[in-house]
């Protein structure tokens, strides 16, 4: 008997049941009918070669070879696609061993949108376009941070959303939703040091978890003890004050007040 092997390349959530005969529908890849876009893409094809373009839900998508991304974008920019609205990647590493990087372009003059995509292998670097668009500076940093895509000749390719010393790229599908081993100990290691791991314990990422030993957040209601005392097992009965028919209300009695020695 062997335990069935589950691939670790994609730990994202999966549907727990899929019909055996389920075949997903597909959005049709239509030929490009829009004259302006068609014209632009023909120019691109002549200059770059080896492009593949189609319409999907009325949006133009064009694939170009990865080494020619900058050339293609420069051409499109000169054709009026002046704004780079978004840049990021899609992870197909577990299935195809590839990442797709997309560039969402907008031409306010022509009132057209165009999505340029390049397919890169794992650990393949592509050329940065940060010198063409200032927005690419931050977008590429984000893409590097989240997917680990290296952009050559980027002026400062550093992490932007995560700390500089973070390990791993969180938006990869191989990165677990609740963080990996490194993420669980990140703050303990950073603030206290590794030797305090056992004393403090790993970070709790379950928002629904109730810690019964937590005396400060009402979790041990009825089992309260003073600060620093050991938890006890017998319950302290809660008395409700029914004076003036208001529950949980007592009149202030100056005789009963207690002044603490020092602030805890």
């Amino acid at each position, binding site marked *: 008997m062997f335990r069935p092997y589950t691939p670790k390349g994609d730990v994202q959530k*999966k549907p727990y049941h899929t019909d055996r005969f389920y075949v997903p529908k597909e959005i049709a890849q239509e030929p490009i009918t829009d004259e302006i876009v068609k014209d632009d893409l023909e120019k691109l094809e002549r200059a770059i070669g080896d492009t593949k373009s189609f319409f999907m839900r009325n949006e133009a998508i064009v694939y170009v070879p990865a080494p020619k991304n900058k050339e293609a974008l420069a051409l499109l920019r000169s054709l009026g696609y002046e704004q780079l609205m978004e840049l990021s990647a899609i992870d197909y590493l577990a299935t195809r061993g590839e990442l797709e990087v997309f560039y969402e372009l907008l031409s306010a003059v022509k009132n057209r949108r165009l999505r340029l995509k390049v397919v890169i292998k794992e650990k393949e670097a592509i050329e940065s376009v940060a010198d063409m668009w200032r927005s690419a500076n931050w977008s590429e940093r984000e893409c590097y941070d989240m997917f680990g895509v290296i952009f050559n000749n980027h002026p400062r390719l550093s992490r932007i959303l995560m*700390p500089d010393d973070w390990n791993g790229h969180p938006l990869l599908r191989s990165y677990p939703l609740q963080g990996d081993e490194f993420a669980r100990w990140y703050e303990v290691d950073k603030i206290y040091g590794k030797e305090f791991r056992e004393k403090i314990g790993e970070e709790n990422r379950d928002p629904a978890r109730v810690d019964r030993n937590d005396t400060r957040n009402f979790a041990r209601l009825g089992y309260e003890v003073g600060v620093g005392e050991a938890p006890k097992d017998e319950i302290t009965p809660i008395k409700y004050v029914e004076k003036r028919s208001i529950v949980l209300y007592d009149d202030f009695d100056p005789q009963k007040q207690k002044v603490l020695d020092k602030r805890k």
Partner: protein
Amino acid sequence: MTTQLPNRLQPFYENIAFERDDNTMILNFGPQHPSAHGQMNLILELDGELITKSRPNIGFLHRGVEKMAENMIYNEFLPTTDRIDYINSTSNNYGFALAVETLLGIEAPRRAQAIRLALLELSRICSHLLFLSTHALDVGAMSMMLYPFREREYALDLFEEYCGARLTHNSIRIGGVPLDFTPEWIKQCEAFLDHMPKQIEIYDALLKENRIWRMRLENIGVISRELAMSWGLSGVMLRGSGVAWDIRKERPYELYKEVDFEVPITDVGDCYGRYRLYIEEMWQSIKLIRQALKIYEDSPPELMANAPEYISAPKEQLMTQNYSLMQHFALITQGMRPPKGEVYVATESPKGELGFYIVSDGEPYPRRVKVRGPSFFHCGLLEDLLIGHQVADAVTIIGNANVIFGEIDR
């Protein structure tokens, strides 16, 4: 400067230089500064009072909204979108719902579209009011803070009346809206719309010709057209630089094709110009809500699209027809399975282009959801925009950019 080896006892801060040969000084503006929006660590290099270098660090709020989206079914993710730009949740709900609808190839019924239009514009007013008061407070107009917040409460009351929530409304569903307007709601909304113009005039009377306000805003933070295009700016930030681009107008979606409104533009590109645009946009929103209510009156009563494969049938059918109920269970427990493909749907949120890029591979969980928040680029712009300004102007410019950090690091 001697090289330091960082350790826990002697940490090494790369941005603090104690001894320098030139006259420059490094200033950490934020995250403690009240106008740094809570978490922006803006590192400024100063020459006297003049900013010579600026480096905004956007902090580590990062909640991984995109990662969460990829681990949730589409309907589960909808309430999460509220938290992306938390001062106008409806626009985010709408952006995501519209993107999924485009992916599915369905359209919301006309009444739902009218309700959405009214809610979206109401949410825009809410957002602009909050912007106005906090921006004014940042600049130093303290009494100005009180007035827009008052009207914002009235607008939030309307949201509360409609869907029960004030800030994170989740008032839009994929395929339509969950609730209908009541006659009382419409009356209250009309009362609000009658109340607003006078109030906007009051704001204007306080600020428009105010000498200090103009001195603090005029010719400050001038964005050239090239810089705006290069940073991928959108919304008021782009229109303030003379680019006539509003997605509602240029690439209209849903009812924006039918309604009549104007897009205010200025080519001055300074903070004062953009402040004027925000005020003008509120006038336009009032006009739009009135039209939405008119369209609402003449629309058939359906609220959700009829697409049994993706969207649960109405309650009446669920209670009478077995197959609808079975389909409903499947949709709730497993989620809808959109067709394979990808869409990028951009909507005009109060801050600019809010885009949802969804890649589906035919499973209930999307393969990729990329949220294009306008604030991300508006914050990046500070790298270039602050240079050459005085330190005091940094506050004006950051406030005027109207950035929301929930949207920046999602």
